[in-house]
């Protein structure tokens, strides 16, 4: 037995009673989904293994795993397991609860009703599973772990199906280009590819070249110095064009780690950890990122590139003047 499997066995043993409770509760509310205790147990064990593998050091405590299990969307998981097993009643429940939503999401994303209908049909077939491996049908439902809600998971499945559908009809287009043609990304990509203007007359000027090179290198360094959650916030806002209220939605869950990384500990928050995140809060988070970047940017220009304070100001000025210039854009792209 490997140390890993010993660890897993120990964790499974510690959580056995919690799994029993989950099964009892779910089975009471949906006794006709045809789920056995072993089926649920095996699914949860698989999820715990995945959780343990991602845990720093790969060794979560029994307490960590119990807390993790408490966060599983067990009713959704029970329904998904019933559907994965091909249970008629579970499928009927699924169809009643989620078909309408799937159709609306597909219609919202797809360009025509025909596409939307095709996506929903494809998703249903994928969810049921037509591939048989070792005598068992492989249902997409079997990959749902209950970590997020079933509805959220379905949104993701629909999204990927739509991308696959487009890829099938545009085989020569790359995956990255394809995602830009689905949903709102379409308009966004057009914006990103817009020609930003004519050749800048000052490109050949030696000092400008020098300052520009220093500017590009310093902004790169400044961005690279940020923590991952800060980088992601900036990328969501500037590249993915998420609005402040959309970012607020992303961190709406009080236990969202993204939210906890940004929020400072305060007495008010300790009293009310679930308080709503407003757009102004996201603004403040962005402001902090800009201040941090500005500081590192300035330090980098003066220390690494030995520029004076006045030259640093010139760099900032030139960079913003050059914003509409195609050459500056190209320079950044190839750095």
């Amino acid at each position, binding site marked *: 037995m490997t140390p890993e499997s010993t660890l897993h066995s120990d964790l499974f043993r510690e959580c056995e009673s919690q799994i029993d409770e989950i099964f009892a509760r779910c089975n009471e509310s949906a006794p006709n989904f045809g789920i056995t205790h072993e089926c649920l147990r095996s699914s949860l064990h698989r999820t715990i293994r995945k959780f343990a593998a991602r845990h720093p050091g790969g060794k*979560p405590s029994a307490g960590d795993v119990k807390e993790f299990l408490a966060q599983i969307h067990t009713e959704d998981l029970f329904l998904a397991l019933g559907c994965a097993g091909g249970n008629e009643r579970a499928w009927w429940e699924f169809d009643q609860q989620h078909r309408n*939503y799937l159709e609306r999401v597909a219609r919202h994303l797809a360009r025509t009703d025909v596409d939307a209908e095709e996506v929903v049909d494809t998703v249903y077939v994928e969810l049921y599973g037509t591939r048989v491996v070792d005598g068992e*049908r492989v249902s997409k439902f079997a990959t749902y772990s209950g970590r997020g809600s079933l509805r959220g998971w379905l949104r993701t499945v629909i999204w990927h199906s739509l991308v696959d559908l487009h890829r099938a009809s545009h085989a020569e287009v790359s995956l990255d280009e394809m995602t830009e043609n689905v949903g709102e990304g379409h308009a966004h990509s057009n914006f990103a590819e817009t020609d930003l203007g004519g050749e800048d007359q000052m490109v050949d000027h030696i000092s400008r070249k020098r300052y520009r090179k220093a500017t590009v290198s310093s902004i790169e360094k400044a961005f690279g110095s940020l923590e991952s959650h800060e980088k992601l916030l900036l990328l969501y806002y500037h590249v993915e064009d998420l609005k402040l209220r959309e970012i607020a939605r992303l961190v709406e869950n009080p236990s969202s780690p993204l*939210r906890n990384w940004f929020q400072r500990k305060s007495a008010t928050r300790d009293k009310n950890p679930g308080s709503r995140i407003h757009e102004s809060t996201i603004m403040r988070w962005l402001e902090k990122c800009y201040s941090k970047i500005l500081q590192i940017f300035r330090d980098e220009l003066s220390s690494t590139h030995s520029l004076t304070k006045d030259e640093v100001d010139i760099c900032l000025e030139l960079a913003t003047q050059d914003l509409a210039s195609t050459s500056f854009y190209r320079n950044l792209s190839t750095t």
Partner: protein
Amino acid sequence: MNYQGILNSEELKIEKLLNLFLNARVSGDVSSEAVGEHLDDDTISAFVEGDLNREESVPVIKHLVDCSFCRNVTAELVKLDLHFADEPVVESVIEEVPSKITQVLNGILAKIFGNNDGAVFAHQEPENESDDEEESKTEKT
């Protein structure tokens, strides 16, 4: 994207420069091939709903910073989530007698593959156990 908050003139300049840099960075040499396997549906949906804990989020956030494909998916899912957030959950009309889901799926398959070959389904619910029992009883007598 232009920032509408309260920034001093220097911060405004850095915000604009950053906007240009980030968009150029994405359309430049950072490709999804360079960041390894994409996140699975399960992880993406849990992240979008804020359901991942701190330990689980660390590698996910790092991946999203580097992988424009997965980041774009999460961003679009957030937009979708918000778009449907205010709409009431409408379930389909409850039928008195559940229709056989295999019939529904067979219909879908027929549309996709052009036939109605139900044999592709590995599972079929036993339909008329009582009838079968009756038949076997009849045979015995």
